[in-house]
């Protein structure tokens, strides 16, 4: 993919008789390659993380932190919303029937179309109506998109989880004349834990996508999404790839973090070691 540009360079510089090895090496070391090589991407990753102070706008750590904070906030809101909806759905048949189609429908709307609306409207409402400073307002707007994407897997997973107790376990609670809240806390909630963590892992990854999407089309100046966009404006493919890798590393770290919490919860619940 980089060959055409390299040939143009040779032609302009009147360089002929380039050996095949030299040609390949040159395509691997272009300043603005179409497809950067691994060493360029990791070099950029290294430069932008370790060699730059984390509070500088050139630092990927800085951008990752901006994206992470929106992701974390959105994930938190989405999880709480998802669990709350699941509890309502499991306990009320009317809510189940009326709300479930809307929840599914909400996920069929392309988030890319919705994101600018949410960011712009949200940002204006937060700064205008509530008088919140611009930075937290920007954060909140992105977090809403995160939450919008992450509440769905959590809600669906938790509905399944809260309904997972077997009939005899529910009958048992009935014979004890247990109240609905006792049945919930002593049976449904602990029984739903494996389902919760499976859906939280999906949810946290969706949150990150939401936060990045929230940064892409809105002229954000900070965050991995903004970094991706800036890279594509200035044909900085190395920067795009570095930001992409940073995003996937962040996603992996988030999923691992959820996994660690899961393992701690499992241990306290006496799960059979796998």
């Amino acid at each position, binding site marked *: 993919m980089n060959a055409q540009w390299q040939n143009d360079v040779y032609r302009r510089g009147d360089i002929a008789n380039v050996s095949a090895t030299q040609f390949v090496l040159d395509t691997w070391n272009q300043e603005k390659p179409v497809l950067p090589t691994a060493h360029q991407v990791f070099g950029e990753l290294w430069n932008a993380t370790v060699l730059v102070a984390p509070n500088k706008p050139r630092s990927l750590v800085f951008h990752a932190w901006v994206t992470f904070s929106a992701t974390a906030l959105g994930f938190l809101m989405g999880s709480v919303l998802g669990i709350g909806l699941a509890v309502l759905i499991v306990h009320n048949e009317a809510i189940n029937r009326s709300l479930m189609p809307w929840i599914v429908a909400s996920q069929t709307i392309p988030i890319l179309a919705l994101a600018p609306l949410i960011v712009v409207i949200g940002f204006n409402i937060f700064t205008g109506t509530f008088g919140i400073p611009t930075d937290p307002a920007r954060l909140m707007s992105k977090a809403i998109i995160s939450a919008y994407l992450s509440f769905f897997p959590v809600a669906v997973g938790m509905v399944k989880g809260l309904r997972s107790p*077997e009939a*005899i*376990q529910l*009958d*048992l*609670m*009935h*014979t*004890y*004349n*247990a109240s609905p809240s*006792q049945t919930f806390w*002593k*049976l449904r909630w*602990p*029984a739903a*834990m494996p389902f919760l963590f499976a859906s939280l892992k999906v949810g946290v990854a969706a949150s990150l996508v939401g936060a990045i999407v929230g940064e892409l089309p809105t002229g954000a100046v900070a965050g991995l999404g903004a970094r991706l966009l800036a890279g594509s404006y200035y044909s900085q493919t190395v920067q795009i790839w570095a930001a992409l890798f940073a995003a996937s590393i962040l996603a992996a770290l988030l999923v691992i973090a959820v996994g660690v919490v899961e393992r701690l919860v499992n241990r306290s*619940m*006496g*799960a*059979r070691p796998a």
Partner: protein
Amino acid sequence: MTSVVSAEHLGLTFKTNDGDVIALSDVNLTINKGEFVSFIGPSGCGKTTFLRTIADLERPTSGTLTINGQTPDQARKSRAYGYVFQAPALYPWRTIEKNIALPLEIMGYSQTQQAERIKRTMDLVNLSGFEKKYPWQLSGGMQQRASIARALAFDADLLLMDEPFGALDEIVRDHLNSELLKLWDATKKTICFVTHSIPEAVYLSTKIVVMSPRPGRVTDVIESNLPKERPLDIRETPEFLAIAARVRDGLRAGHSYEETV
């Protein structure tokens, strides 16, 4: 003798898409305090349904049923019975002692009362030493013993057991049967026990209720004259075999041995 469970013309019909299924039809039965009553019959004869009706897990559609003179609903709310299911139904995230504590927590016993009752019932079912184990660390027989301890923990006078040893092998089952008899003797509880094993029913019971299907009904009620002290080899005595033969006759009279089409 006071009656604990009393059923008069009890009927229960399940409505299904394929038409009505008569699970119980005109059941008349009195169970007195301190009795050990077995319900025996082929599947579909309504023995489990009858037990579930006593436990207020199913509603009768005709007739009357009283437990300690109360309706099943009142009896359940006053926690008149402990129920042991076919499967142990222990909560996997709770240790054995926490599983036994479950009904006590729900019924609002204090911590010290809970500890005292857990110890007492675990001794009763010979599970001492396994308090901190999780259910998956125990064998099937031990799990079912834990579930019996759980049903005993809150001192209900009536114990309802739905094929509690059905999933266990015969050696463990024999052992648990003789333990159950000792436990019954020690606690003086009234026990309703559903089974489809004739030797198990005869070995355990003071009264055997023979049931048959389509519609689910009682075909015979046999009072056992076996002594209270029952070693396992009582099952080879003529008295034992005579009662077993009568149970078999009762099942045959209810067409339980006929091929179903």
